[in-house]
């Protein structure tokens, strides 16, 4: 009888109700608003499972087993990268390699937020961001790349993993809401109407096959800490581009990604226990995630405007905003904005090029942070 009643007695804790609210809100965002449903829905349900008093899913249950077997050892984010790599077509970037620099510029939010977190953590009374490692883990939300955020947070601030993941995926889904006002504030209508020439011919298959191999070797030699991330992404891409492993490529894109996304989502959700999640640090992280995305966008747009000072053929500065890793959402948002200003303006190929450059740049950023922060 006591066994049956302890669940009901456990409901007396206000944090249980609050976390039920958070879990249901995530499920609502997924179902009703379709914000990153593949991840937010499993996360929301995992949150419910973890917060039911005396839940058998946690405390040694299957979700703990998944956490140890897939998150603590970074396996899930790595496997997701194999799938992401198999989905990405680097063609638009290879046709227009200048777009790489927009990917670099739009990582600005990571470092701005990292410094902000560090400074906020120095304010007396603000707990939860004691040092550089935690600040770096928060800053990496600005990578706009879920698996990289999880990977870095697992290493640097496992206690902050849940709010960092929630912030990263939530803001990725909110890119269509976050980016346009920032872009409009930093550009004129004339700038947003700039047309850009088509990038040119389709690149050869040989280039597409050599590219992932060469990038893995170069990035790995420069920043060995990035090998797991960039290597898995490029392995997936090689499966796609080799042309001889279509079955493996399709499996990586579909079955592997779907399976790992289910496990990743529900496991991250299970780390959202009321005691760990409901504190001022979580709110701080959610706020800083937004700042990271805003400054990523600003960094990319301002970099494009800076380049335009020296160029004859101007770049539409909105392209700079696509340098974040949220693929292909950001490219779609920018194309839509371009067409709102001028119905005949097609900059989607450049936007996609900058967007996939952002994928590479965010992983490099994660690798560098892992290598440099002690």
């Amino acid at each position: 009888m006591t066994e049956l009643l302890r669940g009901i007695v456990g409901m007396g804790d206000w944090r249980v109700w609050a976390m039920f609210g958070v879990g249901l809100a995530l499920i609502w965002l997924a179902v009703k608003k379709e914000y990153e449903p593949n991840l937010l829905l499993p996360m929301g349900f995992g949150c419910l499972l973890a917060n039911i008093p005396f839940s058998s899913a946690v405390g040694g249950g299957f979700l703990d087993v998944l956490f140890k077997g897939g998150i603590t050892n970074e396996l899930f984010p790595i496997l997701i990268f194999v799938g992401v790599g198999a989905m990405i077509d680097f063609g638009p970037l290879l046709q227009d390699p200048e777009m790489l620099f927009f990917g670099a510029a739009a990582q600005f939010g990571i470092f701005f937020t990292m410094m902000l977190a560090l400074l906020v953590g120095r304010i007396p009374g603000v707990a939860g961001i004691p040092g550089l490692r935690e600040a770096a883990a928060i800053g990496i939300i600005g990578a706009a790349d879920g698996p990289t955020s999880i990977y870095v947070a697992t290493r640097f601030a496992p206690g902050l993993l849940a709010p960092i993941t929630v912030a990263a995926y939530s803001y990725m889904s909110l890119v269509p809401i976050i980016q346009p006002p920032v872009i409009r504030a930093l550009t004129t209508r004339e700038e947003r109407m700039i047309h850009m020439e088509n990038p040119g011919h389709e690149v050869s298959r040989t280039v597409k096959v050599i590219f992932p191999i060469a990038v893995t070797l170069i990035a790995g030699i420069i920043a060995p800490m990035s090998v797991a991330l960039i290597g898995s992404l490029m392995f997936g891409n090689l499966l796609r581009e080799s042309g001889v492993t279509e079955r493996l490529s399709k499996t990586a894109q579909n079955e592997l990604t779907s399976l790992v996304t289910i496990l990743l989502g529900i496991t991250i959700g299970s780390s959202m226990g009321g005691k760990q999640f409901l504190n001022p640090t979580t709110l701080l992280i959610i706020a800083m995630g937004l700042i990271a995305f805003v400054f990523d966008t600003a960094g990319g747009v301002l970099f494009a405007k800076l380049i335009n000072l020296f160029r004859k053929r101007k770049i539409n500065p909105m392209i700079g905003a696509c340098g974040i890793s949220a693929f292909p959402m950001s490219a779609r948002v920018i194309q839509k904005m371009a067409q709102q200003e001028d119905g005949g303006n097609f900059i989607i190929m450049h936007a996609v090029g900058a967007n996939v450059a952002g994928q590479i740049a965010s992983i490099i950023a994660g690798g560098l942070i892992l290598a440099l922060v002690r």
Partner: protein
Amino acid sequence: MDLVVAEGLRISGLSYLLIFVVLGIFYGLIKLLLRMFPPKDDSE
């Protein structure tokens, strides 16, 4: 300045710069690959 903040500033600046350097190398790599294997390679 707080030593941790100074270290953070150094790492942030260096990392941001290094991202440009690494992607600059990739830029050179792509340019080289495009020169070595021009689009006509597709017909093979």
